[in-house]
Structure formats: C-alpha cells, structure tokens
C-alpha cells in the first residue's frame, strides 16, 4: 500500500505533537485533554451508530456507564478484583453485550421512536446505579481502582518515574494511555467505515430496501452497529473512570447523552475526524470557561454568584447551543464538512472534480483525467 504512506505521514506530525504535550503542559491541561480524548472515543462510537447507520440514540450515557462501572466493579472490591487490564477489556465487552441485548428493540423501531426507546435506557441505568448499592456504591459512587499494566501503575508514584526531567504523575501516564486507545479507535473506526461493513451500514441508513436487495442482512447490521458503538462507549467509559478516579451516577444522565449527540452534530455526522473535533469542542469548552471565568465578560467565577451573571458551565452550554444552531444553519455537515470545503477551495485547481476525501487511495490514478473528459450522454 505505497499510496498510504503520504496519508500516514500527515498523521505523524500531530501524533508527535500530542506525545510531546505532557512535557510542556501541567496536569490541569492534561486532564482537559484526557476528558476530551475519552469523549472522542465515545463520540466516534455514537457517530458510527447515529451518523453512519442512521440510528438515533439517546442512550449513549448508559453504555458509557456500563463501561465505567463495569471496570470499577470488575477490578475493585467489592467485586471480583480482577487484574485491572483484564477488567478493562471485560468492561468493553460487557458494554458491547449490553448493546447486543438492546438490539432486538433497535431492530424493531426506527428514527425518533428509537430515540425514545434509548432514552428509557438512560433512566433505567440511572435508577440502577442509584439502587444497586453493593455494585455501584449508590448515590456517592465508588472510587476507581487504578490501572496497572505488568507492574506499571497509572498512578502518581507506582513506580516513581521521571522522563527528561519531568516527573510523570497519573495525568501524564494516563495521557499516553488515552492517546494509545484513541489511536486504536481512529484506526479501527476508519477501517470499518471504509470497508464492507461501513458501506453496508450507510446503505441501511440511506435505504433499507436498496441495502436488502443488494444482499445486506439489514437486521443483523442494525444490531451490529449497536454492539460496536456500545463497545466504543464502553472503552470511553473505562478511560473516563480512570481519569475521574471516582464514578458517580449523576454524571451518566440524559445531559451526557445529549452532549454526545451535540458532539457528532457539531463535528459532522459519519466522520471520525469530525466526531473527534466535536468531542474536543463540547468537552473542553465548559472546563476552559470555568478556568477563565474571572477574565471573561458576563461570566461569574464559580461560587461567587454575581448578580445577573452566568455560571461558567451554563455559559458554555449557551455557547455550544448557539454553535449547534449556527452549524445546522450554515454547515449542516459540521466541522468536518466545513474543513473539507475550505480545503477544496485552497486546493490548486488541478483536479477540481475530485472529491476531497476519495475513500480509496487507488482512486488517485484515475481522477485527474476526470475533468478533462466530457460526459457522453448529457442531454
């Protein structure tokens, strides 16, 4: 695949940049980045389900909770106290299984009705988290056992580690774990979307009838989309639990599901890069506004409660509500579509007809000829 090399080259620079960040940023910024990475993994999963396969889901928070609590219970005490790495893998599988259990429902209802059905999952999940004390710790939640991989702990001092004069605490270590998991997500999700399953899923979204007569087992692909999406959500849940160090039921409410929908809408449906961008936007914005509340106009610092001023979290919500409206009005294909159009405009006029994201590298050989050749059968 020699054509792929330049593509990977393009990814190399951002990857190196991300790897260098812990040497320059303090724990606060790394934590924001970590939450964003976790959200990005979850958003990629939801994008696969709602963007590519066209199944509206308001239940993403439930699957995140399954991942987060699954890990906490499996690795913790009370619980089987499994090795944390194994617990993490099992938690992801558990989330996938939860998605699989829900898929008979998903196979029967469509569109907004599916949205309502998944909404029920969130309420059910929240209720379970509050009442199943022995597993979830009830209202106060549970503290999350730290991850250890072969004797290396993702904590502040197990073992003490200093790289190039920078002490590596929990945030620095988790940052690299997050990057690795995100790279895995990016690689697998793009492979899925550009391969046979991705084509089948978008065919199911565009026309179930056409997909079926082309040989796609529609029911199977609809439920497979749920399973895969839930597995990504589970992975995001595990990473979130590790970065929060404590899981509480109130975090996994309806608002979280809506946040994830906002991420994929802002980013652009059906695109991995878009979901990532949307996740960073939605996750990092409230945290940044909290941090800089005292320097922003109209925003009160948390706890001060100034007259007529907004709390930073509310302000962030207003802001991204406005962004959603603007995006739906002016760029319905989200940040991803926006950047694609900007790039198409900046591209030299050499091959104007070529779609900027030709899905397969092999297309590069034929497309420059495209504009030169006139259509044969145009009336």
């Amino acid at each position, binding site marked *: 695949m020699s054509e792929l090399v330049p593509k990977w080259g393009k990814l190399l620079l951002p990857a190196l940049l991300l790897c260098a960040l812990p040497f320059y940023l303090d724990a606060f910024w790394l934590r924001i980045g970590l939450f964003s990475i976790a959200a990005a993994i979850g958003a990629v999963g939801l994008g696969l389900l709602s963007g590519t396969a066209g199944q509206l889901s308001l239940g993403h928070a439930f699957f995140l909770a399954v991942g987060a609590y699954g890990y906490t219970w499996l690795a913790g005490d009370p619980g089987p106290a499994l090795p944390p790495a194994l617990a993490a893998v099992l938690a992801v599988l558990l989330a996938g299984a939860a998605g699989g259990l829900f898929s008979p429902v998903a196979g029967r209802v469509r569109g907004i009705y599916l949205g309502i059905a998944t909404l029920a999952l969130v309420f059910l999940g929240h209720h379970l988290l509050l009442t199943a004390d022995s597993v979830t710790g009830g209202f106060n939640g549970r503290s999350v056992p730290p991850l250890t991989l072969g004797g290396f702990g993702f904590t502040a001092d197990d073992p003490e580690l200093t790289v190039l004069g920078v002490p590596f605490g929990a945030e620095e270590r988790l940052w690299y774990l997050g990057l690795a998991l995100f790279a895995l997500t990016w690689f697998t999700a793009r492979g899925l979307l550009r391969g046979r399953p991705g084509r089948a899923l978008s065919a199911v979204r565009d026309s179930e009838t056409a997909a079926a*007569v082309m040989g796609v087992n529609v029911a199977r692909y609809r439920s497979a989309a749920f399973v895969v999406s839930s597995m990504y959500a589970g992975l995001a849940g595990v990473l979130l639990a590790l970065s929060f160090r404590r899981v509480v039921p109130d975090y996994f409410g309806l608002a979280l599901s809506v946040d994830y929908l906002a991420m994929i809408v802002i980013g652009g449906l059906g695109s991995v890069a878009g979901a990532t961008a949307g996740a960073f936007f939605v996750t990092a914005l409230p945290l940044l506004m909290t941090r800089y509340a005292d320097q922003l106009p109209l925003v009160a610092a948390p706890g001060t409660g100034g007259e007529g001023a907004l709390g930073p979290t509310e302000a962030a919500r207003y802001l991204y509500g406005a962004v959603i409206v603007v995006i739906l009005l002016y760029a319905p294909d989200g940040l991803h579509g926006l950047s694609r159009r900007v790039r198409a405009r900046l591209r030299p006029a050499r091959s104007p007809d070529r779609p900027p994201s030709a899905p397969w590298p092999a297309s590069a050989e034929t497309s420059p000829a495209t504009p030169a050749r006139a259509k044969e059968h145009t*009336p």
Partner: protein
Amino acid sequence: MNIRTTGRTATGPAAGPQAAPPALHVRDVTVRFAGLTALDAVSFTVAPGSVHALIGPNGAGKSTCFNVLSGLCRPAAGQVLLGDTDLTGLAPHRIAALGVARTFQNIVTTEGTVADNLMLGRHALSRAGFAASALRLPGAVREQRAHLDRVREIAELTGLGAHVDTPVALLSYGDRKRVELARALCLEPRVLLLDEPVAGMNGAERAATADVVRTVREQLGLSVVLVEHDMGLVMRLADEVTVLDFGRRLAHGTPDEIRRHPEVLRAYLGTGAPDETPEIQEALETPEAAETADPAETTKTTKATEPTDPTETTEETAVTEPPGENAP
C-alpha cells in the same frame, strides 16, 4: 479473476459467468393489499438467458411482481422458483445472495461515490466482517482491492468509467440511473430485474442503456426481466413479453404476437377498436426497422425518430408514478 464465483459458492450453488442461469418460474403468485388484489394468480417463466419483458398500464402490478421476485413483498399464494430453489418467503438479502439483482423505478442510490455504490453491489460476494475490516487484516484489504478492480471493469462496461470517483449526487439523471444498473451488475447476478431502466432518459441515453443490457446478456449470459413503458425498447430487446392488467396476466408471447394481440391494445387504449388507435400501433411498430440493425444504427434510428415521435412524450408523463410505489 475468480472472485465472481467465490462468494456464491459459500451461499449457494456455484455459477460461473458462462454457466447458463437457471430458469425463473413464477407460479400462480397472488398478492393482496387490504382488499386490493395487486397480483391475481400470475404465472410466467423466464427462460435461461432470455430477456423477458413485463408490460402493462400503470397499476397493473409490474412493480409488485418485482417486489415479490426480490423478496420485498411476500405473496399470499403462489411460488417463485429459481431453478429448483424456492424463493418464496426468503429474505431479500438471501435472494440477492442467490444471484437475483434488481434496480428500482425511482433511483435509490446511497451517499458517496459511484465506486462506493458499486462496491455495495459486491456485498454478497465478499465476506470481510466487522473485526477484519476494523483491524484491516490483509485478507480484508486484498479482498477489497480485488473487488474494486472488478467494480472498475463493470463501470467501464456500463459507460461509467469516467465517473468512478465522482459522488453520485453530482451525476446527471441518466448517469445515476446507470449507476443503479451497474450496481445490480456488480452482484454478478444470474437473473437481473430491471424496473424501468430508461424512464426519463433521452434518446441517446436510452440507446446506450439498451446496448448495455444487450451486451451484458450476451457476455455474462444472464436472464433479464424487464419492466418498461418504452414499447420500442421492449419490442427490440425482449424475447418474450408478458402483459399484465389489473394484476392479471392478459397475454403472453413473443413481441410479434403481443403487437397484434387485441386484448393488449384494448388494455392500453380502453375499448376502442385496434384500427382506430394509431398511437399504440405506432409505438408498437416503430422499432420494426431497427430490429435487425446493429447497435450503432439503432442509436441513430432512435435519435432520429425521437423528436417527431408523439408517443415518446405521452410515455414520459405516463412513467411518473407515485414515488412510494416501490416501498414494500
């Protein structure tokens, strides 16, 4: 390249492109929609490798018949057999895997480029699953590349070679119609169901599509079932014609027999006597001159007759049927 057959061997009997397709038998198929009998004990047989046209006025049950053949609609009675395999009640994707491909009257393409759409046609012939595609295992990558090669061949064959990487949404109407045909061909079908393949096309596009149908039938040796309002095209392409009216089989025979069939003329034109009906006569007889001509000449003939042929315009309007008709 043997990928044409590898997929099919997994799901059904092996069928090389040269092997004659099995006959398609439709036996006493009845379909009712809440009191309306859309098909009433309709029977016909598509001989291996032949072009079988299904004609009739709007609402005659042609599209319903296609929906039964492709599994989108389950008949209340009757049977559909492909060779010895009973297709009645099979899910659409199983019927597709047995080598029955169809196009739609209203264009149904998916987002993405022409290549994406055509690759969807390879779905039943390939097997890369979620895990293999997510991890980009060498097998999945190789399979995808091999199928992409075949997709390019089919695009060339159908005259879409220059548009392989163009998003379907940017194509002209005629080209999008052709994408559907090409996508169906990507299934390497043994039986190809074409629902109004030239509706709304201009003369040159019609001739080009007719050429494609003729070519694939000769090269790939498949059977074609054709629903079409363009009588000239039907009479030129078809080996056999079945006429439906109000869900019943009205007539059956060679194009020549159908052209003279009094019942057919009545169904198309009401109760008027055949000799007072110049329009249908003209429509049925126009292609006579072109019948034995070679493809190039056919193109010219069609082009030449197009602007002056009064039936063309009436038929154009006649094709505009409710968009929901194809829904199962």
